[in-house]
């Protein structure tokens, strides 16, 4: 469904992606692992059109994404949950959610449905719905960022290090959400440094190093033999 072929990208002069090829099929959870600075976040940003693509192609459901502006991606079904969460701090929780709800083609009933669904997954958001986004704790902001993406009813969510900086209890909640999304048929491209979580949630994994994909295997294979992971992510 989402295919990156030989993707190259530059930050100014710095050549940060040297031919990345990744594929996510409909409904799949695919993991993207690697140490800091290898280009995982850059890959997601390249899909979102936020980084200069200097080679290769990205197609989504057969359609070439070259020339599609960033604000056109949501309508195609691509949602992004960035590493820093990027909650609209001065908007309330509900207003944050509304940035995804106020789309053409959604009647009021459907909007309420989506809102209810997200409140069921994240009861704390219902409680805090009139609070400014900036007053939420780190974990709550992460919930909100994911909920906000769910408002777009996406076909795929680009999830960037959702467990970073979270306490173990919250990490479990994230794991639950990833499962729930998967059950709903939403595909996920999960960038993470948390290996056990990714091994458990994903069906296939790519491992990146220095701007390229170095290894690609099924989660089952990697669970059985973790040496490759140690080699690329350990010390």
């Amino acid at each position, binding site marked *: 469904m989402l295919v990156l072929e030989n993707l190259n990208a530059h930050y100014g002069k710095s050549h940060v992606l040297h031919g990345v090829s990744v594929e996510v099929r409909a409904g799949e959870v695919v993991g993207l692992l690697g140490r800091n600075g290898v280009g995982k976040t850059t890959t997601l940003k390249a899909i*979102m059109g*936020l980084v200069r693509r200097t080679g290769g192609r990205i197609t989504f459901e057969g359609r070439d994404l070259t020339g599609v*502006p*960033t*604000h*056109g*991606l*949501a*309508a195609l079904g691509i*949602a*992004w949950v*960035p590493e820093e969460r*990027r909650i*609209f*701090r*001065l*908007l309330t929780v509900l*207003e944050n959610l*509304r*940035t*995804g709800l*106020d*789309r053409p083609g959604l009647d009021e009933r459907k909007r309420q449905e989506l809102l209810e669904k997200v409140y069921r997954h994240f009861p704390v958001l219902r409680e805090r719905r009139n609070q400014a986004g900036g007053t939420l704790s780190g974990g709550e902001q992460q919930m909100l960022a994911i909920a*906000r993406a769910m408002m*777009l009813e996406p076909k795929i969510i680009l999830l960037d290090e959702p467990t970073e900086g979270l306490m173990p209890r919250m990490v479990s909640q994230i794991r639950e959400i990833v499962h729930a999304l998967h059950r709903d048929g939403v595909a996920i491209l999960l960038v993470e440094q948390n290996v056990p979580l990714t091994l458990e949630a994903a069906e296939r994994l790519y491992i990146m190093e220095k701007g390229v994909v170095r290894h690609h295997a099924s989660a089952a294979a990697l669970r059985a033999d973790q040496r490759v992971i140690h080699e690329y992510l350990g010390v």
Partner: protein
Amino acid sequence: MDQIVIQTINGLVNGMVLAVVASGLTLIFGIMDIVNFAHGDLMMLGAFVGATVLGITGNFWLALFVAAIVIAMLGVLLQVTTLRPLIGRDPLTTILATFGISLVLQKYALWQWGPTVRKISEPVSGQFALFHLQYPWYRVATAILAGLIIGGLWLFLKYGKYGIWIRATTQDRVMAQAMGIPVPLVHTAVFAIGSAMAAASGVLFGPFAGVTQTMGSDFTLRAFIVVVVGGMGNLGGSILAAIFVSLIEAYAALVVSPAQAVIVSFVVLVLTMLFRPTGLFVPTPK
């Protein structure tokens, strides 16, 4: 004592008009980082268009409405043709562009309407006795109208369907795009709103001093001072700062000549930059 009350009212009235101008300016800056040097000239053109419509129809409110619409459209034209292509470039480029637009607009006005001062007559005539003075009702009406405009803007931003789009885009342009908000369209819309507000303030201010090609320049400068003092991009701050600066000027005019009282706003600017550069009315960042 009565002098002080009179000046307080004057300060508030002037402050409210300035607030409408400054709100548009700060909204534009806050959302797209454009320092709009032509803002006062949009006000000036609004006043001219208003004067013309008033001359034809004799209806002040129609003049106000038409001026706002026409200048909004002008704003859209300017933003789409001149400013949108400059996005992402060095900020100096947009400053030069808006400065250039300002010159063009002023000369256009001169060409179109000639050098004579135009009159906009007050829609609300009559005065009331304020101490030893006869104070025009119109001035009070202006303040109220300005307040309504600002109130309308605030309500729209807070509760309106597209208000959320504007506020989200102001806070995080990139994330807004990721959520499917058509940011280029939002930018154009905000520029249109800012222009319309400038035009409205031009028509409102018209009866105070007559309509000339240079009336905008005074306001642009004062509006910038207000925007900086209030905290750039901070709507509430600009409004408070506009009133604050106008009040201080009004009080200063009791002691020195009104021409000299203008210096007061510059002094406030310098002090703000020295001691609270993020703005006087901005909560201290945590």
